[in-house]
């Protein structure tokens, strides 16, 4: 049975052109003016923007092991609601995704959920312990075809292990996604070290703990001629080091989270752990540097670091609370607020940073194709001229730890198509999505 045909009328493409777009048999069949099709369901998209389906390179789906906080299914639904057609499942599940069995399980759960592609990320080291390499080859050759490896949550801090990992993944065209955090400089760290932490008496997480690892790892990547990706860059200094590395031709890419594009450490003054995240919220100076870095391409992508947590791990003292924030359902609106409304970036930039570039870094074929005729119909639609009120109780995630509760944000995601089928249609999330 072929999937239904949709005719998207009058939407604006990332390059600014107004065009019709025909989805048929799971692919983009035509992009042209005045398309007509007798059997198609017609969607009037005048005033809306069509983007290739968003691709998140950094998602915590919490399954297996922490299903109280999130499952592959609930995260998939949250992703579809936010305009995503692909997520990347970070390896810090329980058990850890350090072998072919776990990554194949997560991949299969993603396929069963059916809302989007779930690409598992493999751990770099066994158990995320930073001591010995995980089963990198077995994961790369598994059905999950893992290409991104990360100990995220932990830093691969031993320089020799980092070097070996960078070398080993060259066999698979892989990439190491580094959580840059020197562990010795961040013992019991709670928030950005600076003026605010000094007053609050919360232990500091200094910018240098991130920057020192970024500097070391771009030099290692240059030395062994491998591919390095820096997760969630948060500091102006980190942006500077990556800019320097790229100018020297080092094969490094970097991501920024939506929350680091908007929020600062001033929010910690409330002692509300909803604002506790790792790496921590930084200063306004850093936020501005991150926006500039994203605009000029020093930072390649926006990735959510969607980190669901149960209520009890946030309804407590700051120091006892878990690190992390939700991100999937608010990501694009935050990018609109911080990058589009400020005129730092245009929609083609958004398409690149949230779809094309992350798909390229992850080697996710079938994603990030920028609305090319003949490619899989993975796309989404946003109405940039409307706003919405974030309500933590109305999210699709199983968890409620969004820092944006009560925010009025620009840009409503109205449609998401995954391989030609709607997962979100006119603002309504489909309750079941039939697999091919």
């Amino acid at each position: 049975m072929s999937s239904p045909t949709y005719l998207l009328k009058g939407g604006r493409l990332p390059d600014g052109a107004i065009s019709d777009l025909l989805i048929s048999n799971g692919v983009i069949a035509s992009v042209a003016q005045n398309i007509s099709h007798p059997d198609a369901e017609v969607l009037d998209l005048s005033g809306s923007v069509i983007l290739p389906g968003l691709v998140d390179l950094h998602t915590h789906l919490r399954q297996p092991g922490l299903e109280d906080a999130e499952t592959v299914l609930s995260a998939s639904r949250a992703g579809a609601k936010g305009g995503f057609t692909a997520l990347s499942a970070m390896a810090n599940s329980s058990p850890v995704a350090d072998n072919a069995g776990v990554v194949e399980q997560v991949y299969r759960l993603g396929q069963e959920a059916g809302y989007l592609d779930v690409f598992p990320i493999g751990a770099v080291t066994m158990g995320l312990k930073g001591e010995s390499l995980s089963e990198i080859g077995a994961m790369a050759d598994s059905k999950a075809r893992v290409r991104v490896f990360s100990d995220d949550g932990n830093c691969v801090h031993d320089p020799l292990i980092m070097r070996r990992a960078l070398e080993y993944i060259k066999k698979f065209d892989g990439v190491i996604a580094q959580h840059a955090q020197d562990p010795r400089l961040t013992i019991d760290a709670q928030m950005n070290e600076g003026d605010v932490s000094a007053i609050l008496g919360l232990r500091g997480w200094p910018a240098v703990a991130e920057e020192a690892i970024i500097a070391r790892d771009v030099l290692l990547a240059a030395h062994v001629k491998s591919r390095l990706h820096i997760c969630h860059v948060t500091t102006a200094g980190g942006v500077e080091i990556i800019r320097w590395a790229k100018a020297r031709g080092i094969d490094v890419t970097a991501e920024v989270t939506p929350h680091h594009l908007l929020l600062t450490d001033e929010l910690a003054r409330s002692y509300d752990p909803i604002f506790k995240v790792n790496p921590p919220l930084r200063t306004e100076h850093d936020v501005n540097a991150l926006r500039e870095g994203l605009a000029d391409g020093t930072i390649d992508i926006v990735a959510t670091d969607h980190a669901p947590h149960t209520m009890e791990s946030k309804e407590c003292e700051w120091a006892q609370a878990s690190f992390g924030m939700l991100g999937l359902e608010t990501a694009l609106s935050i990018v609109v607020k911080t990058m589009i409304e400020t005129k730092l970036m245009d929609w083609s930039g958004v398409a690149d940073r949230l779809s094309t570039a992350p798909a390229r870094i992850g080697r996710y074929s079938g994603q990030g194709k920028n609305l090319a005729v003949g490619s899989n119909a993975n796309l989404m639609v946003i109405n940039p001229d409307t706003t919405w009120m974030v309500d933590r109780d109305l999210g699709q995630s199983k968890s409620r730890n969004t820092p944006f509760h009560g925010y009025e944000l620009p840009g409503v995601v109205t449609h998401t198509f995954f391989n030609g089928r709607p997962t979100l249609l006119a603002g309504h999330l489909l309750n079941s999505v039939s697999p091919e």
Partner: protein
Amino acid sequence: MRHLLSISDLDAKAAISILDTATELARVSDGAVKKLPTLRGRTIVNLFAEDSTRTRISFEAAAKRLSADVINFSAKGSSLSKGESLKDTALTLQAMGADAVIIRHNASGAPARLANSQWMLGSVINAGDGTHEHPSQALLDAFTIRKHLGKGSPDLAGLRVVIVGDVLHSRVARSNVLLLSLLGASVTLVAPPTLLPVGVESWPVKVSYDFDSVIESADVVMMLRLQQERMSELFLPNTREYSRYFGLNGDRMKLMAPHAIIMHPGPMNRGLEIAAEVADSARSVIVEQVANGVSVRMAILYVLLAGQSLEAGVM
């Protein structure tokens, strides 16, 4: 004002009002009948999630002298040591009808969490939270300084206070920096660079690494407690070196101006940050600080729970 979480909750007028109220209440404590009926029928909970005998007893005495019913809820042997969350503890206290909770906690910001959550409705008084603040200690310190050196002035304008020691981990220092500068004193922090927070540049203080260069001009020298574990955490080479540079010994005390006083929030490490001969000297007002603590804490409870201050001559 409903809560006292930080000195930043106060402006100079409010702080002076607490000190003035404490002065009046101290007069009551010196009288034959030490008790006032002000808080009769009110329930005050001492929630001490971290051990502290002196602060708990001081608040307990203050509450009882105002005729409040006091419930002590300490860490050891209580539900707090059995993993009960702060939220559940707060819900329990609310169910018991606590009008105020005096909280000591090892987590910075725990009092703010109690006050700003919807878990309980009563007043929250910070009795020391982690490395954040200890506002009642700062108020009793200011009270003590004013009594000795205030010359009848309501504030501390023009006085020079030197605070010496582990500023990084000291909630006493944070509250004192805010309060003393609010009241017009000039504050100098003296510490090894490792024990000053990054960000201290934004504080309303001067910073020195050289105790001897600032001690002569000080009106008040306030010593801070140094925890032994700072050595293993690599903040300092050893305790001898710390004492040599930053300890207040008899020789160093001789550099002080004749009128200058010596303070310490306790508990002291005699022989480490302060020599026994200094602690027991005529300049030391350390024991008096403890006595003043009861009057100042009475004033805090009075202002927060009775909703008024006591001006001189009213009683």
